[in-house]
Structure formats: C-alpha cells, structure tokens
C-alpha cells in the first residue's frame, strides 16, 4: 500500500507508449485514491515530481507522463522492472456530482487527471478535449462517453478552442430551454482553465479546475506551491469557482523554485525546461 510518508519503492509493472509524447507507467500497488489527487514520484538520483493518477484499479494504478522536461523525459524512458519511489496520494481531488448535466473540458495532458473523473461521472456528460494537433490527443479510444475534439490546426474535430464548443453548448441549452450544466470540470493550460472559469462565471455555472505549481513537500508546510493565500498541494489542486474568484494569482502569478513570484508565462516556460 502506498502512503503519504516516506516513499514506497515500486517497480514499474507495465508501460504504454501512447504516442511519441505520452507514456503511461503502471504500478501493481493498492492506493487509496480519489480522482484529481496526485502522488510524488521519485526517481532516485534524479528528482521528485508531482503526477496525477490517470488510471486506477483496486491493485493497480498508472501515471501518464508528457516527456518535455529533464525529469519527464527520464521518466518516459523507465521500463518494467525499474524502481521509483512513490508517496501520496495528496490533495483534495474533484467533488464528483451525480447529475448528468456535467461538462468536462480537457486541454492537452490535462486529460490525465480528468480521465478517472470521466469514468466516474454520468456517461451523458458533455466532454470536450483540445490539443495542438490530432497526434497530441491522449487516450483516443479510452472512454464510453462521447468526446468532442478541438485542435489548433484542425487535424481533428473543431479547429479552435475548447471554449468555443463549451460556449456553444451552454448557449444551446439556454436557447432550447434545456437544463444548464450543474458543474464544469476543467484541466489544461492555466490560460485555458481561466477562459473556462470566466465563461462559467458569465453564465452562473459553478466549475472546478485543477491547478499546477512547483511543489516540494506535497502536504502543506513548505509553501512552495502557494497561489494567493491557497496552498495548492493541500487546499487543491482542485479549486471551486468561489475560491478562484478570490485567487488573484490564478492565471497571473506563480512562484519559481526560489520562491520568487513571476508572471505565469515566465513560470510556464521555466517549468517546461
């Protein structure tokens, strides 16, 4: 059983290379997990980073890695039998509603934390997934629920933004006097989540988004991941609309490793190194 103290050493039990960009590593361990929570993954001698759990069964779970930085490129080269340290799960996770009037909006690898959520929501949800191109669509055949795609280049689905489709669906429900969304869930680039949040605010729809910040402890003491007065690792990573309204750092400011607050764009380019 994985727990939230000293890392438990786990051997990679399976590996799926979805495409050149995304890899999922599986571990045959039980973990008490709620969709949206994350674990700290330690590659001895390299570093330790937070990853959401993207697959979860009773005695098996998986994390999906987008190979783009020093750590993630290394993590993507791990093969079955290799050992990593895992501690967690940490964070709050999503509040899951029973209503069929839910929307899930995923951007890029933001699909990973949303995947176990989608599998728990009513299958009649409205589900949008955007990516750079068709090749960057994660888990193209995983879900029973119908998924609408958007791409930056139009290589799959709508050419444009996820918010184009979400806005159209909100309007359609309004125009046709159909029940409006009871909740919108989003994860992706922060600028995208902010656009979803803003759209929901305008229409009086509650939403939940999952934020990302540089992390150290994972359990709310070191302060590395603060966003305004919220501690992302323990108060989040999932935040509701009423919290986001007060978080002026949302889509604006994040701390570098030194603790220096910088514009989100600067943070994002540093994080992708």
């Amino acid at each position, binding site marked *: 059983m994985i727990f*939230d*103290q*000293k*890392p438990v*050493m786990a051997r990679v039990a399976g590996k799926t290379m979805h495409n050149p960009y995304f890899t999922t590593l599986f571990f045959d361990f039980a973990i008490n997990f709620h969709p949206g929570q994350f674990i*700290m993954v*330690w590659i*001895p*001698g390299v*570093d*330790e*980073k937070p990853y959401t759990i993207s697959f979860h069964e009773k005695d098996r779970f998986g994390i999906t890695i987008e190979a783009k930085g020093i750590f993630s490129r290394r993590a993507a080269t791990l093969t079955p039998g290799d*050992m990593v*340290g895992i*501690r967690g799960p940490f964070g709050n996770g999503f509040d899951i509603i029973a209503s069929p009037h839910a929307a899930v909006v995923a951007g890029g690898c933001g699909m990973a934390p949303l995947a176990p959520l989608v599998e728990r929501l009513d299958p009649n949800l409205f589900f949008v997934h955007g990516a750079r191109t068709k090749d960057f669509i994660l888990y193209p055949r995983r879900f029973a629920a119908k998924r609408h795609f958007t791409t930056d280049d139009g290589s799959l689905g709508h050419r444009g933004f996820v918010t184009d489709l979400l806005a159209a669906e909100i309007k359609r429900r309004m125009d046709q006097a159909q029940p409006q969304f009871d909740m919108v869930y989003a994860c992706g680039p922060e600028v995208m989540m902010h656009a979803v949040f803003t759209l929901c605010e305008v229409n009086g729809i509650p939403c939940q988004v999952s934020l990302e910040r540089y992390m*150290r*402890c*994972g*359990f*709310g*003491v*070191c*302060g*590395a991941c*603060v966003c*305004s*007065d919220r*501690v992302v690792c*323990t108060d989040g990573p999932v935040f509701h609309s009423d919290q986001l309204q007060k978080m002026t*750092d949302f889509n604006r400011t994040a*701390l*570098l*490793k*030194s*603790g*220096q*607050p910088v514009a989100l764009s600067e943070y994002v380019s540093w994080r992708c190194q």
Partner: protein
Amino acid sequence: MISFLGKQLKNPLVLASGILGNSCDILTRVHDAGCGLVTMKSIGPAPRDGHKNPTVIDLGYGMINAVGLPSPGYAHMDAEWQALEDRDFPLNASIYGGSVEEFSRVARFVSARHPDFIEINISCPNSDCHGMLFGVDEKAAHAVTAAVKKVIEVPLIAKLTPAAPDIGRIARACEDAGADAICAVNTAGPGMVIDIETKMPVLAFKKGGLSGPMIKPIAIRCVYDIFRAVSIPIIGVGGITTGEDAVEMFMAGATLVGMGSAVRYRGIQVFDLVNRELNNWLAAHETTREAVIGAAHHPAGRTTHDPVSIAKDLSSQYRKNTP
C-alpha cells in the same frame, strides 16, 4: 493582547520560519487562523533555488527536510515588501547569510522595510555554507549578532540550533551581543533516511533537519537550558502540536511558543486549536501563562507558597528570567 519586545501580539503563538512563509497572502491567512506572530521564510543575500527534491519527507513522528534555503534574495522582493507594508499583523523577518558581512547587508535592507522583528537564522543545517556554522560557536554567534544589531532599527531575535554543544552559552553570547530575544530551536540533527531497496539517502541533499513531535524533548531541554543562561525572552519551538505541549514549553521557560511541523499534522487551523487548548488548560488549572513561564525551574515538587523560601530558591539559581 501580549506585549513582546514592545509590540502587541494577539496571542503567544508564532509561525516558525520556513513554514508557509513566502508571501504576504499566506502570512495573512496564517495570522487570521490564530497565529500571534508570523515569520517569513528566511531571506538570503542572493537568489537561491534550494535543493532538488525530495526535500521534505514526513516520517509520521516528525519530518526530515533539506529544502536548502531557497530565497528570491532580499533585493528581488519589491512586490512582497510593498504588500507587507500595508499589513495589519506583526511580522518577524528571518534572514540568513554566508558571512557576517552578508548577514549585515541583508539585515540593513530588511530593517528598512519595517518588519516588527528581525530573526537571524544562525542555525540552518541544510546548506554547506550558511547558518549553522554561526550557531555552534560562541565567538561567531556573538560576532554576527553584534554586527546585525548595529545596522537594524527593530528588535533582534537569534534563532539557535540544538546542535550546539552548550546552547545556553550560545544564547548568552547572543544576549551579550545585543540580541533582544532567543528563538530555539531550529531543526535537530541533521539526520538521514536511507531507502534500503535502492541503498540511497531519500533526501537529495542526503542529510536533513529533524522537526515535529520526535524532537520535542530536545527542544524543551534547550529552552530549559537557555532560560537559565539569559534574561531575554525565549520563543520556544520544536515539536509543539497541542495546547499541553505549549504549556510544557512555557514551563521550560518560553515566553512565546512557535509551531511549524504542526501544520502538517493539524492543518493551518492548528494555531486556533492550540490557542483554545492552551486557554482551556490554563483555566482548568486556575492559572495564567505568565505564571507558568519557567515553572519547571522551581524546586522539584515545590509545595510551599511561602514567599521567603521561594525567593531563596530562586536566588540560588544561576539566572532568573522575568516573563
């Protein structure tokens, strides 16, 4: 309200340095959650990233950490200083340096940003060239304290390490050099945790400071020793997570009580909870915080209330502290 070095605090609880202290927003929240005095994460002379992860691991009975003193550097915090200028709570600014000159440079700059107190971190075990070297040597502790005291206009608190062979003597050296209060203790050790599957130390820095419940007896002993060595007030820190722990720390000689790792075990609301537990304990025992400060220094099992014999006991002690 509690008067401490000329400032008014709403209660005797202090946020220890290094915990959640890196922005005005989060410091405000900790104050609102019932903390009487919040301490900023130690501010250094230059931008510093700290160590790679893993940096902080919970062991259940406490934590081990080697974060490595990350800091934007004192000169790169304009927005934070600006925000803190308008605060409505008392602020303790922790600083560090690699030399007496660096300590002075940071201290002079920080003092001009008007924190209520400046705390010199001469006790961090998690860097090869900062902090702890000053805290285990009387002459070095005296030199850095005297140098900082000269360039600041706010009260000076010296934060000590339990690694000092005789912490009372270090505290006395700081007092002699002009420190207005002592904060004790920083993390203990350093310790090490090795993963036996990979045969590797878990922390990237290998060694790390110990905190939380496992070090409480060390912290209590240190504060007890310091109380007998100095006449300036003491902020007692180390393993406090409950009101009864706070009472114990007061009895050892602390005027205020700090908490850090307790946030891991009871959340940010730990300040409100401990404050309530402390007041309940004091009420149930029909006493006050002032009355229990240093109470453990009275002769064992004292039963007399005769003022003459108490005075005699007290004067026979090496030093007596006035709360």
